[in-house]
């Protein structure tokens, strides 16, 4: 009798294990992108553990902001953990590195990186890749729009001497040129630099109406502090990469009055009630702050949450077609992700198509300014 029971339990258990959905995650929780990767990792822990009646297992690995480690992670996730879908990674180089492995094994990949090249131009490889973070171009247009509204004619750029700064400069220069904005200075600095006096003096000598700082996280406060210290009076713009509370803490009163585009999630509570993103954004904000304390929210965790939102929508559809753990399921999941329509996430409304695997529109960004140490929505 007991043996029969044990067998039954075993049978039940093994079918359950077979039907589990495995989601692999690779984030940059250490290394240079750690300030982005840590909230993403925290967010994965808040994602639903059952979707469409099936248990979902999340296997989270750290890639230390290293593309080689990211490649190793996705190989491990696919061969050892037999995952059905991979979320990752935090940065663009890591996501690009993971793409090849994902395609080889026909596993959908949902990246949280900023640059548009992760999903554009659409080809056989990017067929399997989706992305939850706004493209840099989305954000750069918002900045240029705001600048022209304020009659800015000359602008200086100072950004990270890496892919982030370079990518931003390219996007920004392209759009600025089209809108007849003149870029009078283009400077670079290192994330770890202790001083940007030289760059700032050169910018001041060019007398720009506005300065755009192309940096992410707390290091982006340094140029703005130096500009203020040397008496710069024009407009200062930051990118959405600074949208966390540590930036406000380090920047203090010197970053007051900066303008930046962000995902609506950052100012969710200030959005008008008819904003379509408000409800879904607040859901995430409340959940994260309940787990990690008030004011702990950062824009980057929202990208991980949105990956969960996409899966929550796509998995039930894929389950109708195939069993998790099979090639057919992964294909069905990819098709379902591509078919996402009007799905509100924390950062915007997803409308995927075979050509657009990012899916956001203008509703995925708002301009904010820093006022009394908080983000304030610019009407």
């Amino acid at each position: 009798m007991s043996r029969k029971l044990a067998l039954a339990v075993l049978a039940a258990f093994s079918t359950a294990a077979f039907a589990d959905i495995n989601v692999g995650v690779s984030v940059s929780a250490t290394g240079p992108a750690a300030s982005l990767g840590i909230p993403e990792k925290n967010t994965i822990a808040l994602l639903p553990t059952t979707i469409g009646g099936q248990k979902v297992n999340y296997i989270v690995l750290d890639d230390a902001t290293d593309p080689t480690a990211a490649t190793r992670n996705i190989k491990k996730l696919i061969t050892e953990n037999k995952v059905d879908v991979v979320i990752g990674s935090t940065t663009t180089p890591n996501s690009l590195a993971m793409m090849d492995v994902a395609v080889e094994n026909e596993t959908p990949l949902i990246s949280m990186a900023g640059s548009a090249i992760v999903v554009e131009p659409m080809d056989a490889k990017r067929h399997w890749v989706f992305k939850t973070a706004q493209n840099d171009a989305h954000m750069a247009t918002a900045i240029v729009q705001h600048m022209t509204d304020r009659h800015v004619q000359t602008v200086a750029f100072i950004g990270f001497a890496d892919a982030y700064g370079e990518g931003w400069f390219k996007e920004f220069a392209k759009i600025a040129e089209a809108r007849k904005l003149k870029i009078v200075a283009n400077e670079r600095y290192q994330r770890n630099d202790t001083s940007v006096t030289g760059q700032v003096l050169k910018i001041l000598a060019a007398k720009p109406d506005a300065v755009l700082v192309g940096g992410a996280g707390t290091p982006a406060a340094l140029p703005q502090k130096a500009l203020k210290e040397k008496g710069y009076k024009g407009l200062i713009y930051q990118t959405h990469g600074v949208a966390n509370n540590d930036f406000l803490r380090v920047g203090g009163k010197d970053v007051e009055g900066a303008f930046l585009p962000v995902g609506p999630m950052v100012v969710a509570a200030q959005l008008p009630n008819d904003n379509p993103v408000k409800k879904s954004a607040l859901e995430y904000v409340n959940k994260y702050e309940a787990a990690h304390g008030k004011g702990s929210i950062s824009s980057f965790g929202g990208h991980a949450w949105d990956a969960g939102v996409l899966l929550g929508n796509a998995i039930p559809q894929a389950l109708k077609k195939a069993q998790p753990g099979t090639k057919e399921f992964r294909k069905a999941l990819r098709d379902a992700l591509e078919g996402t329509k009007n799905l509100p996430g924390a950062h915007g409304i997803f409308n995927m198509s075979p050509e657009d695997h990012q899916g956001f529109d203008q509703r995925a960004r708002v301009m904010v300014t820093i006022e009394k140490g908080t983000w304030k929505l610019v009407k």
Partner: protein
Amino acid sequence: MDLQILLLLGQDGVTNGAIYALLALALVLIFAVTRVIFIPQGEFVAYGALTLASLQAGQVPGTAWLLLAAGTAVAILDGARHVREGRYGKLPTLLFVNVGLPLAAAGALFVVPPAGLPLAVQVLLALGLVIPLGPMLYRLAYQPLAGASVLVLLIVSVAVHLALIGLGLLFFGAEGSRTPAFTDISFELAEAPLQGQTILVVLASAVLIAGLYFFFERTIYGKALRATAMNRTGARLMGVSSTMAGKLSFTLAAAIGAFSGVLIAPITTIYYDSGFLIGLKGFVGAIIGGLASYPVAALGAILVGLLESYSSFWASAFKEVIVFTLIIPVLLWRSLTSRHVEEEEEE
């Protein structure tokens, strides 16, 4: 480029150069005494600055726990040896210094909220939490290998550096911190504003360098270190313990590092991994001094600071390239002019 810009850049370069100079001196000191190329030197800068920042934020800094853990490890290692050799009388002192004091410090931080203390006390507390890590590090990582080749010691340094970086991320998080300025005074020098904090950095560095000079010339411990640096075996024969010399030089290096960290924390944002780059620039200065000459190392470090400042104005994207490329002509010049000594390849 007018005079004002020239002055501002020069001022910036000298400020950073002063910090690099301190680190260069620490690197030369450690290398001369223990033959260790001390890559983790910069980590003490970051630890010092971030410990101070977390004290000011009212948190108990992670370095307090690291100190306790390292102290306990040292106490176990040394205690076991004392017990084996039957020297029970030394145990209480050992336990008190390595476990008792860190425990008392951590306990005190829980009782007295550090955020409310005056700035000077916070600085002393931060220094007190970071500096003992120097000799403990020497005891744990280097002392067992004191006789190993320079290469082995370098590899240990890389390992220690990576371990400290990882711990730094764990203790202080990925985002940086800045501490409030010690002084808000500002002067005008030829129409260029001169911040009081900048003067403080340069002055403090100068005082520290003078203090080091006095220490090496006038005190018995300083002379013992110099003796060890010149001839390890000879110094041992004269009764200078190389373990003592090693611990002392690491204490000094940690003190210099942590102090530099406290000095620059108000002028820039410090991250858990900032120390490496700062230390590396000090290292370029130390290389200019051939890892042997203190004054040349200090001047070299100031040169690095100035070069960095002016190149950030002219070609900001290539700043690091310019600074680190400086090593190549310097090495070339050094290898052409100095007599090459095959030092201690005895194994």
